[in-house]
């Protein structure tokens, strides 16, 4: 069993984040569904959670903007109480071959996927330290370990999350705060739906389990890492990739 501790999921309105928000709510956490652009989607997730008997609220935030994050976290903590569980899931892709990748494209992906996790975690961590309890899960990707042609920016950001997480795991362990990474492989979301059919088929064929993950399959692992029984797991990079990244 897991105590009902308030959780914030960034990028919680769609895809993997949506599934994580739903899974954490099902585990008894009041959940703040962070979103930047998809207000309707975030409202839908909140409605779904509430209809299932859970507690949730939407939380508008731009993870690249410190003031926006501060305002959102303040509002969440006023309504749900001090955040005890943080899932940094907000992420974007902006793919292109490295040789043609301009600095803006590089920076934009790093700003959301890596700096964003820093900014939100930085805002939430003092409360976790005070409470002497916390769970931080950062959503990385198998490409952070394997690399990915056309995704140098995304892979660099996702690899960066691993270094961030493991440093935090060491710093915060004395305060009973665990910090872990999940590294999904290809997941059936709008992000991967946008890929050409041939690319999707090739990706699925490269996965030993031969298919994309459902978002709920990633969310189940995140929910475990956020639970009381996961108290002795910290600094881990947990693959949820159908075997794609084995050995990395």
């Amino acid at each position, binding site marked *: 069993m897991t105590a009902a501790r308030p959780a914030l999921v960034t990028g919680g309105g769609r895809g993997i984040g949506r599934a994580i928000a739903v899974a954490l709510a099902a585990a008894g956490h009041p959940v703040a569904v962070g979103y930047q652009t998809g207000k309707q989607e975030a409202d839908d997730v909140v409605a779904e959670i509430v209809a299932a008997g859970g507690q949730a609220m939407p939380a508008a935030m731009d993870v690249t903007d410190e003031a926006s994050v501060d305002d959102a976290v303040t509002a969440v903590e006023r309504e749900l109480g001090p955040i005890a569980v943080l899932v940094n899931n907000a992420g974007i892709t902006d793919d292109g071959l490295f040789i043609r990748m301009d600095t803006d494209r590089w920076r934009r992906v790093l700003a959301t996927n890596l700096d964003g996790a820093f900014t939100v975690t930085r805002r939430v961590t*003092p409360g976790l*330290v005070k409470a002497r309890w916390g769970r931080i899960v950062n959503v990385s990707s198998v490409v952070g370990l394997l690399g990915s042609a056309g995704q140098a920016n995304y892979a660099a950001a996702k690899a960066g999350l691993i270094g961030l997480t493991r440093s935090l795991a060491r*710093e*915060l362990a004395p*305060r009973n705060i665990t910090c872990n990474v999940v590294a999904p492989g290809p997941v059936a979301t709008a992000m991967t739906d946008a890929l050409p059919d041939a690319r999707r088929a090739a990706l699925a064929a490269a996965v030993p389990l031969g298919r994309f993950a459902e978002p709920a399959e990633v969310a189940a692992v995140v929910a475990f890492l956020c639970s009381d029984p996961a108290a002795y797991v910290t600094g881990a990079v947990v693959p949820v990739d159908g075997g794609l990244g084995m050995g990395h």
Partner: protein
Amino acid sequence: MERTEVVDAVYDACVELLKADRASLTEATTFAEDLDADSLDLVEVVMSLEDRFDLKIPEDDLEGVETIGQAVDMVVARASDAAST
């Protein structure tokens, strides 16, 4: 701000956060050796002082702070800076 008020506040933080015995504390008490505090403990003490006195203490101010007296000096200096701006 009275210096004695800050001393009391630092003592409070040491008792609450570092489980120190209040009767044993003096301005010469060292965080690391006497109170077995690590760097994160010291940051927590500073955060509680920031909250109590509504101050922002820059990271650089923590350099060289080893004793309770030095922590008091740091807060007093920041408070007088804040009051004069």
